[in-house]
């Protein structure tokens, strides 16, 4: 009885609430509720500032109000064509990646483990470009071990620099969709530096993905399956005729092209056989005919002496492939839930076009469905998108380095070039935990009020153990003493006899890596919120809050939340009017920190 009463009250309240919502949104977004699932293009008369903002948020990394106004003045076709046909836009002004010189010839091919590096060095008298010391010398393999750890650290640092370079490209590129698609493919064809251990491979893969980001799926698939980084990441060097390794074939089918449930275990094994001998000679693809299985295979109903490219073509002949890849692009650009009709429709047209990505993107980005209520401001921003788009909306031209970009996004679960595994980032709600949600706000407090003095650059940071070793060496201890952990007598004995000291190697490797990698210049964000509100003619607390909301939020603030922010700023300023003065900038920064910490701000 009580329950029924509650429900009645609830329904009454809910229906009045809904009625209001519909009424309120009707004036802003005509027909947007009925547009869900409609893939036909919107017309010029439906174009608006809000819709242009939505488009650039998804097809890029957001924009300033000035830029959105410019897009809103064009037709939707022209805006979408401009985004999709980005080759026409000159991007030569973008800075190339300024590589450090960290690889020298002896380091290739890099051994899979420290143990293997040592074994090779013992055998050949040298390793990783370093000669071992004469017999009888203490720690005669030390130079090789130092070099091994140097390489790990140097590649980590170089990958951090590469990530920062890419972030700057996302921020500054006049072709935002090119970068957004490249980021999509990076998650789709996930490859991580911590396994590859070679930033050059990551950089090369990044260029390959960018060059084909809006091209053809077949080219992308062939490109990624011949990509040295991917070949190393999935251990395809171990996929040989005598011992086929299923990993490569399995990921191709399950993650890259068809999705689970659309092939058999036998198909996986047969695909693996077709890719035997696909390997790399450091930075180039190599077909090792000796290790390739030229025998007959039966894959998805096709029989013959199939090779890797035959497998790819057979996969592309499956209707499910079009649906799987188009569906994934849809979930990335439009919304998480895809109806089976839309999926089938997009999949069919994608396959019929010979898997051209541009027409698919054009269709999705122009569709009424893309601008329908369930698609707008319902996507949880990825950490990289969150940080880059914030800087973009602030009007910054360069990514600040205090706080550190990689640390910021990494703490939220996304480090460029380090996806969690071959499945990439799961995205959506998995970005959010109570701790990461607090952290998503805390980050921007660091941006607004940077701790320049207390900042410790991660590209020059040592682990606690390495720091301890360094301190002890500086105190005049010898290597044995400086690297001793724990109190056991046996530790000392062992160190005296061994050919190298790993702990010292870690420390020495750090020092050399710090010397050879270029330093990341450190600067905090060049923000001038005072100038921003003056330019916007926001001379009252109300207008400032409205300006920040319009500039940064995709979801309108509830009236009560808007009022809270207005009264916060009013309390800070001691008045409703906004006048330049000593405390204005810091008050505005506090206010913006609040805006950027709201649940609303997580949505794009």
């Amino acid at each position, binding site marked *: 009885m009580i*329950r029924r009463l*509650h429900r009645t009250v*609830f329904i009454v*309240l*809910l229906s009045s*609430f*809904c009625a*209001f*919502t519909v009424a*309120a949104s009707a004036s*802003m977004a005509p027909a947007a509720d009925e547009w869900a699932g409609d893939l036909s293009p919107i017309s010029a008369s439906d174009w608006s500032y809000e819709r242009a903002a939505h488009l650039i948020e998804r097809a890029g990394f957001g924009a300033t109000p000035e830029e959105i106004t410019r897009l809103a003045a064009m037709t939707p076709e022209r805006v979408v064509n401009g985004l999709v046909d980005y080759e026409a836009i000159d991007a030569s002004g973008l800075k190339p990646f300024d590589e450090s010189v960290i690889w020298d010839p002896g380091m290739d091919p890099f051994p899979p*483990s*420290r*143990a293997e590096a*040592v074994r090779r060095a013992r055998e050949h008298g040298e390793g990783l470009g370093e000669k071992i010391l004469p017999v009888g010398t203490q720690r005669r393999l030390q130079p090789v071990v130092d070099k091994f750890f140097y390489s790990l650290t140097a590649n980590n640092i170089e990958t951090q620099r590469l990530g920062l370079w890419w972030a700057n490209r996302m921020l500054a590129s006049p072709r935002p969709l090119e970068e957004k698609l490249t980021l999509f493919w990076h998650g789709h064809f996930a490859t991580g530096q911590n*396994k590859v251990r070679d930033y050059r491979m990551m950089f090369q893969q990044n260029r390959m993905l960018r060059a084909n980001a809006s091209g053809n799926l077949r080219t992308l698939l062939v490109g990624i399956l011949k990509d040295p980084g991917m070949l190393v990441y999935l*251990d395809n060097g171990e996929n040989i005729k005598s011992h086929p*390794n*299923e*990993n490569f074939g399995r*990921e191709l089918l399950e993650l890259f092209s068809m999705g689970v449930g659309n092939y058999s275990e036998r198909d996986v094994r047969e695909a693996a056989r077709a890719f035997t001998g696909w390997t790399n000679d450091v930075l180039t693809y190599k077909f090792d005919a000796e290790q390739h299985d030229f025998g007959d295979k039966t894959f998805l109903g096709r029989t013959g002496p199939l090779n890797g490219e035959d497998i790819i073509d057979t996969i592309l002949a499956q209707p499910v492939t079009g649906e799987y890849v188009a569906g994934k692009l849809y979930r990335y650009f439009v919304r998480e839930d895809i109806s089976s009709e839309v999926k089938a429709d997009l999949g069919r047209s994608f396959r019929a076009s010979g898997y051209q990505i541009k027409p698919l993107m054009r269709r999705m980005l122009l569709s009424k469905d893309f601008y329908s209520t369930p698609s707008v*401001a*319902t*996507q*949880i921003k990825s950490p990289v998108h969150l940080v880059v788009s914030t800087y973009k909306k602030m009007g910054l031209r360069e990514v600040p380095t205090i706080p550190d970009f990689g640390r910021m996004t990494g703490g939220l679960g996304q480090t460029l070039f380090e996806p969690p*595994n*071959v*499945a990439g980032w*799961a995205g959506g*709600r*998995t970005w959010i*935990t*109570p*701790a*990461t*949600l*607090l952290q998503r*706000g805390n980050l921007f*407090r*660091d941006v607004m009020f940077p701790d320049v003095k207390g900042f410790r650059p991660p590209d020059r940071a040592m682990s606690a153990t390495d720091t301890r070793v360094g301190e002890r060496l500086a105190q005049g201890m010898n290597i044995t003493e400086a690297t001793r952990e724990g109190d056991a007598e*046996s*530790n000392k004995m062992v160190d005296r006899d*061994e050919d190298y000291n*790993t702990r010292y190697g870690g420390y020495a490797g750090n020092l050399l890596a710090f010397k050879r990698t270029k330093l990341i210049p450190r600067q905090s964000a060049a923000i001038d919120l005072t100038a921003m509100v003056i330019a916007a003619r926001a001379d009252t607390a109300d207008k400032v809050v409205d300006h920040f909301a319009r500039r940064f939020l995709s*979801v309108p603030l*509830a*009236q009560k*939340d808007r*009022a*809270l*922010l207005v009264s*916060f700023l009013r309390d800070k300023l001691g008045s409703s009017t906004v006048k330049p003065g000593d405390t204005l900038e810091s008050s505005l920064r*506090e206010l913006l*920190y*609040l805006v950027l*910490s*709201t*649940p*609303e701000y997580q*949505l794009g």
Partner: protein
Amino acid sequence: MYGLGLGAGLPFILNRTSAALAAQALEGTSVEKHPNRILVVIELSGGNDGLNTVVPFGDAAYYQARPKLGIPEREIIKIADGFGFHPSMVGFERLYKDGNLAIVHGCGYDHPSLSHFSSMGFWHTGVPNGGESLGWLGRVADETLDPKQRNLIVNLGTSQSLAVRSRQHSPLVFDDPARFRREGTDAEKQTLAELSQARSTTNAALDFLAATAHNATESSDFVRRASAAYRTPVDYGQGGGLAGNMQRVAALIAAEMPARLYYVTYQGNNFDTHVQQADLHSRLLMYTADAVRGFIDDVKRLGRGDDVAVMIFTEFGRRVEENGSLGTDHGTATPMFIVGKGVKGGMYARHPSLTDLDDGNLKMTTDFRRVYATMIDEWLGCSQTSTILKGQFATFKVFA
């Protein structure tokens, strides 16, 4: 669009009403057999040397493969059938003698990966050599726990483990409770707490975020207070990292945190003992055994002994043969442990042969998902075990 112009109090009424309705709707309809049971999973990252943990001292091949690292028979804590614990594991000896510890021999999976990263991913997802994006514990939560209830998964670590990644649940992830907080001045925090109220709009993602934000504000305070206030006479040993985290779990259980799944990581790839492993490994095992023993004693003291079970795993064992640096390299099969008052102690499954090897590595005898299935089916009492694990896996009757 989302409540513009509504009276300020309305969203709160809506929220309370819907919460009350949800609670009533669930009342009496729960399919859970054991709604009070808690599962704590401990990850020993780096690849623990199983052969020097549960030592097969009765097999001469062990000493042949480990001339320098083999644990002398006289030092081993003998348990049964030629097996014994590493001498530093007195904590496990106690648990084993009390009948509260099960050892499952030879755990692994087909086509083992020797990469920390890949192998750990396989254990996290419970899908070896596959590309599953959700964690096995996350899927347990998705299948069995009410998505409207908060804080059912707690993950103590610097970042969220893939193991707890869930479609519907938002795990509470923190490392140092003192740092699990919102930054800012009191005025900023006060305003943000008000801006983070749960709400009910037409945008489900926004409602989720607001609910999580509200939860974060409340639970970070709760976690900080529970940890700061917790006092226990139980000694968890010296292993700062793990002992501290296990004590934090006990503190949350004592404070009646609703969490059902706890995930604790022994941080920093510590078990990756390639070099001079003897002393280091001895310390790690001592810390682990002491922390687990302390935790079990502590939850018994809290009167929750019957409700708590611990499962311990690592991403792989190590090669049978020691290497030239007085350490061991990455290997394959390794024992898992199940601990708790409700456990039928003893040894389960067959130990792999030390001589019939695959390229120097043990051939696993037990698919690790059988242990997962045991925890899901027997301990948590969930009937969807095969859906969660994407296959049928026989359980061990450790709890029956």
